[in-house]
């Protein structure tokens, strides 16, 4: 495909997004809460779309399609476990995060942990873990975009440029109006993701499966419909993903942005419906690719191979939908990390900093983080792949601290520090060395270590004074929300 068409499609897509972002800019007020949390005034529909588009990245249309292509239905199951676990956790945790944000004025999840455990060092440690684990994750999105642009254009758009376009677009949306712009443009990206996928499904169904898709796939690739993963692989991949949504700041920060309880309900239901539709579609693409383009050497090239067989206009639409998935993920990550760097790191170094100054430093970090992520994306694929896998696993180190913050009054600051640091080191070490003691994957070991240390140390140390008040207040969130409204 001519690079000109790709550039044109990107310009049109970017123009629509910029219009939305400009509208958001017109409503931008002053202050950190306004910029990073849209003044806690986001409603159901935008809330559902921004959460969905943030969570579902280019991994779905490239990585998961490839995983289904290579290993069949088990990959679908793995994604479903993630979805259902997330829905239950959202129902339990969003109201608690939300009411805590309203009461104590939290802007970041690291700030919440630091305040609940009455230890500023915790906010700094968690902030550093977030930054170290999520920049490689951002880079993977850029790698996908670079490879896709290069592949679609037949090399006309070089990899470095393809991987640079998305951070530039995302930077404009983030910088211009912060969370409100990101949330609104995420809604656009979410709609594009669904339209692109549904159109592709319709075309594939009509063109390649005239005698029915399900019958044909069942006849040609029955092995893909059987569950083929081993137990340790299933456990090792599912376990970090079950809790992934709670642990990534770009998601948990969204729990602070909602305006009321109706919006919480709308966000959860909307996310569930979006997630179900998108996951099923992506699974069907993987299974269809196994029938249409069998025998590919690299499973991740299943979607590009599929796109090479469809009309150029459709391939371009789907490619834009994949770019949209990437942009909606990376803009949320960078916005979240910049707020964390300003509030949890810079403020720790300079406690008396003004809000304007904090916002200035947070915004300054936005282009720097995009540049670092782009720089990472120029490195070798293998290393980034390992770092990205480590990122989801590494976040398991703070899971006991997060759950304990809301549900266990005995949880202490010493326990958080002494459990999260060794755990993240062990996870990183096991990943780097390719170690799986007793066949268990690194995140499983990380979770065991951090849980044991967190519980034991909490029992022998004194809980902070705020713990009981915090746990009681967030547990009684319904009564407190009602009182707040009245």
């Amino acid at each position, binding site marked *: 495909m001519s690079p000109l068409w790709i550039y044109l499609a990107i310009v049109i897509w970017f123009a629509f997004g910029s219009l939305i972002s400009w509208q958001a800019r017109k409503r931008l007020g002053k202050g950190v809460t306004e910029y990073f949390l849209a003044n806690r005034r986001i409603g159901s529909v935008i809330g559902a779309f921004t959460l969905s588009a943030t969570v579902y990245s280019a991994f779905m249309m490239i990585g998961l399609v490839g995983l289904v292509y290579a290993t*069949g*239905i*088990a990959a*679908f*199951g793995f994604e*479903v*476990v993630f*979805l*259902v*676990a997330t*829905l*239950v956790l959202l*129902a*339990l945790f969003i109201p608690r995060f939300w009411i805590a944000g309203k009461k104590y004025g939290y802007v970041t999840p690291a700030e919440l942990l630091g305040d609940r455990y009455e230890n500023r060092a915790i906010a700094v440690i968690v902030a550093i873990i977030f930054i170290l684990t999520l920049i490689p994750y951002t880079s993977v999105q850029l790698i996908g975009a670079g490879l896709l642009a290069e592949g679609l254009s037949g090399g006309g758009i070089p990899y470095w440029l393809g991987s640079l376009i998305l951070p530039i677009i995302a930077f404009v949306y983030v910088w211009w109006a912060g969370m409100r712009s990101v949330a609104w443009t995420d809604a656009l990206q979410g709609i594009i993701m669904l339209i692109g996928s549904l159109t592709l499904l319709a075309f594939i169904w009509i063109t390649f499966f005239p005698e029915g898709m*399900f019958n044909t*796939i*069942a006849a040609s690739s*029955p*092995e893909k*419909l*059987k*569950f*083929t*993963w081993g*137990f340790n692989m*299933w*456990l090792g991949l*599912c376990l970090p993903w*079950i809790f992934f949504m709670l642990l990534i700041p770009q998601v948990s920060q969204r729990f602070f942005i909602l305006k009321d*309880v*109706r919006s919480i*309900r709308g966000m*959860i*239901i909307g996310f*569930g*419906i979006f*997630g*179900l539709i998108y*996951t*099923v579609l992506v*699974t069907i693409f993987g299974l269809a690719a196994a029938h249409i383009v069998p025998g590919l050497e690299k499973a991740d090239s299943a979607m590009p191979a599929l796109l090479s067989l469809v009309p150029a206009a459709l391939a371009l639409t789907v490619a834009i939908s994949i770019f949209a998935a990437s942009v909606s993920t990376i803009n949320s990550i960078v916005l979240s990390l910049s707020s964390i760097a300003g509030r949890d790191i810079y403020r720790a170094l300079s406690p008396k900093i003004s809000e304007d100054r904090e916002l200035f430093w947070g915004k300054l970090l936005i282009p720097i983080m995009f540049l670092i992520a782009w720089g990472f994306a120029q490195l070798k694929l293998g290393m980034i792949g390992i770092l990205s896998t480590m990122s989801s696993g590494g976040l398991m180190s703070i899971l006991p601290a997060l759950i304990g913050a809301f*549900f266990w009054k005995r949880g202490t600051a010493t326990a958080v520090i002494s459990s999260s640091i060794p755990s993240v080191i062990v996870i990183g070490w096991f990943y780097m060395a390719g170690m799986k003691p007793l066949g268990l994957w690194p995140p499983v070991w990380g979770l065991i270590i951090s849980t044991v240390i967190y519980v034991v140390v909490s029992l022998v140390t004194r809980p902070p004074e705020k713990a009981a008040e915090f746990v009681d207040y967030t*547990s009684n969130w*319904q009564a407190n*929300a*009602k009182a707040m*409204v009245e």
Partner: protein
Amino acid sequence: MKRNELQLVLAFAVLIILTFVMPFTVLKHIPTFSGGFTFFSLVPVAVIIYIVIYMAKSWKELLK
């Protein structure tokens, strides 16, 4: 944690156990769409319905 939340967690635990048991006992033997594909499609549908009912009942006062 409130009673209705405990019920939600319990239902979730049962479901997760099911998603860890079914694949290795039943789904690995069924090479058709009525096996893993149907099972894994129905699980989120059931969870969405359960959560909609849970929120409607438990958060009733706040959703008026």
